[in-house]
């Protein structure tokens, strides 16, 4: 059995938390004592039924205000799959929390309130989904109960969203009319929308093929830790421990260590007490090389025949996530997997106007702004373009004054 990680996005009050509550409720994933707590809660729907959104709105402030502030992770499984859900906030102020939930997901559920259609946050979130390269998108037209379960409304909004999806280059988009509140087409097929021939959301999630079309050759493993027991019997033991980001490594493969550029051959691969001849993306392993070369944390092992890009000047998409605006006069820290290097923003290429998706000249970057920059790092960075290899194409910026994570970066181009 495998795991599907997905998240919900959409504007405030579009019903994201309610939808997840409904998914859990109708799959019998809510346990008796949790249900009891829900029933005892004084936050109820107008008709007195339990408010399913409080299943994920776990913070006091969230329950008091009836909004989601930070991501909540929920877990459930059916006979077909295990699911990890990130319920993210719709409020623009908390966009960074939405990006947190989205960054590790393989599928996005974008909710649209059928009464309002596509609104600014729908566009913003869809834009982020496209930037983050999330391949599978399900658009749930929610609150169908409030528009008389109308096919006309569904079609009109679907058409509008398709135009947006084309503009954003979203490849796989599926539309499902639902009522999170009443349960139509969430787990059970709706009786109110005979005109809809497709599957319910759950059935779609159970069957969607999310097998990665992984960049098989682009073998990359950042070294997190060097295992050197230095005991008598293990005197020469020197294992490079890390999690393979992408591609696969085989015993006898020729590998290059970056940034030093030294190369060697894989002597053996260990996964604790196992000695596989091959290890692949996602596995945490320990690699031994035939030659003794100087390797430490922050270095990366790569397939010698498929080297990554290497540069100090890189063009990247940037989502700004801090209340203090970007300051191009200070030096930030850039963290790329296990590697940390100093970094300055050299140029703001453009900022995106979320309403029109137009690229505008800009001189500043504030909380929740998204756009393109050119950055310069102190050390040469071995990276892949985000479009070619997500796992090695992203980084974060840290403000060394506050230690906060202030931006998400996706590498788009080598620059000079």
């Amino acid at each position, binding site marked *: 059995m495998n795991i599907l990680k997905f998240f919900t996005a959409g504007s405030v009050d579009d019903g994201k938390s309610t939808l997840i509550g409904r998914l859990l409720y109708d799959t019998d994933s809510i346990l008796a004592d949790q249900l009891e707590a829900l029933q005892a809660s004084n936050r109820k729907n107008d008709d007195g039924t339990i408010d399913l959104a409080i299943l994920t709105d776990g913070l006091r402030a969230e329950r008091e205000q009836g909004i989601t502030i930070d991501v909540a992770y929920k877990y459930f499984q059916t006979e077909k799959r295990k699911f990890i859900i990130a319920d993210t906030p719709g409020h623009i102020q908390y966009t960074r929390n939405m990006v947190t939930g989205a960054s590790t997901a393989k599928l996005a559920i974008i909710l649209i309130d059928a009464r309002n259609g596509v609104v600014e946050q729908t566009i913003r979130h869809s834009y982020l989904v496209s930037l983050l390269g999330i391949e599978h998108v399900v658009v749930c037209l929610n609150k169908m109960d409030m528009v008389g379960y109308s096919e006309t409304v569904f079609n009109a909004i679907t058409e509008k969203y398709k135009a947006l999806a084309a503009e954003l280059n979203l490849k796989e988009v599926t539309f499902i009319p639902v009522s999170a509140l009443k349960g139509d087409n969430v787990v059970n097929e709706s009786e109110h929308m005979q005109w809809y021939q497709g599957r319910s959301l759950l059935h779609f999630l159970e069957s969607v093929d999310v097998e990665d079309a992984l960049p098989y050759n682009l073998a990359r493993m950042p070294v997190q830790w060097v295992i050197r027991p230095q005991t008598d019997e293990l005197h020469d033991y020197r294992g490079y421990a890390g999690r393979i980001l992408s591609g696969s490594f085989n015993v006898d493969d020729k590998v290059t260590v970056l940034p030093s550029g030294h190369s060697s051959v894989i002597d053996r691969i260990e996964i604790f007490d196992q000695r596989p001849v091959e290890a692949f993306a996602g596995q945490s392993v320990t690699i031994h090389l035939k030659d003794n070369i100087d390797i430490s944390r922050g270095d990366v092992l790569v397939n010698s025949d498929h080297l990554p890009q290497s540069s100090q000047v890189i063009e990247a998409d940037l989502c700004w996530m801090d209340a203090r605006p970007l300051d191009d006069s200070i030096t930030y820290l850039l963290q790329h*997997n296990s590697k940390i290097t100093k970094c300055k923003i050299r140029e703001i290429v453009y900022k995106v106007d979320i309403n029109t998706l137009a690229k505008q000249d800009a001189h500043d970057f504030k909380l929740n702004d998204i756009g393109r920059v050119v950055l310069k790092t102190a050390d040469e960075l071995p990276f892949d373009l985000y479009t070619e290899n997500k796992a090695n194409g992203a980084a974060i910026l840290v403000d060394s004054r506050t230690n906060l*994570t202030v931006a998400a970066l996706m590498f788009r181009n080598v620059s000079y």
Partner: protein
Amino acid sequence: MSKVNLDYLDELEAEAIHILREVAGQFEKPALLFSGGKDSITLVRLAEKAFRPGKFPFPLVHIDTGHNFEETITFRDQMIDRIGEKLIVGYVQESIDEGKVIEQTGKNASRNALQTVTLLDTIAKYGFDACIGGARRDEEKARAKERIFSVRDEFGQWDPKRQRPELWNIYNGRIHKGENVRVFPISNWTELDVWNYIKREKMELPSIYFAHERDCITRNGQLMAASPFLNMDEEDIVERKKVRFRTVGDMSCTAAVSSDATELDDIIAEISASKISERGARMDDKVSEAAMEDRKKGGYF
């Protein structure tokens, strides 16, 4: 092309190992908080997978309430012998003797809340900058909100409104002096995942996780082990019951469940069919809707 999608237990394991190695790489003085429960025993197993044949780059730290199940302490000491790692124990009794905390009184008295002070003192005493814990997001709704690297201020407090973005699998562990980070490598595991992993790895557990006969009393609708640590009176009727524990805290706050499950397979079947959550068996969460959030804000695990 070989297979690309890992089986779920392999994926969860690989993620946890990655997180443990990040802790080793990013911090000067990390520690692994070891409670003797199944989640922290799982962490120890994962640490073996992350660092063997080397030593763990951190000691194990046990906050001892003094109200332990004997079986947990026996298990702890045997395990430490087997793995050959360092154990540091912080005693709640010492915090009480030093007057830093005051023992609760009354029928529902428990040392659970007092642990926080001992924990924070132990962190300060040894200067730990990262504490690895076995909390899972499926346990409780406030935990469902917490990052894998969760920054705590000088007072150990969690501020849910100011959590750092946590993007991709890149963990930012930079902190100022005095702050520390709580790290939760098995955040994404469910209770059932832990049990399936224990089975797959053939891990040893304290015997109280398996069904056994024990003297119990019924308190607030829950079965509690009769012990000197529980304030009992005439109203409490002691009955011999066949029980097991789903989660192991101290004796005064962990409830037992009636069970015949003596093997791992029985336990897995029992949990799969259960209609009550794991923490439903902990009195400490029943206090209010935001009990866990409030304790975390105060520096709890």
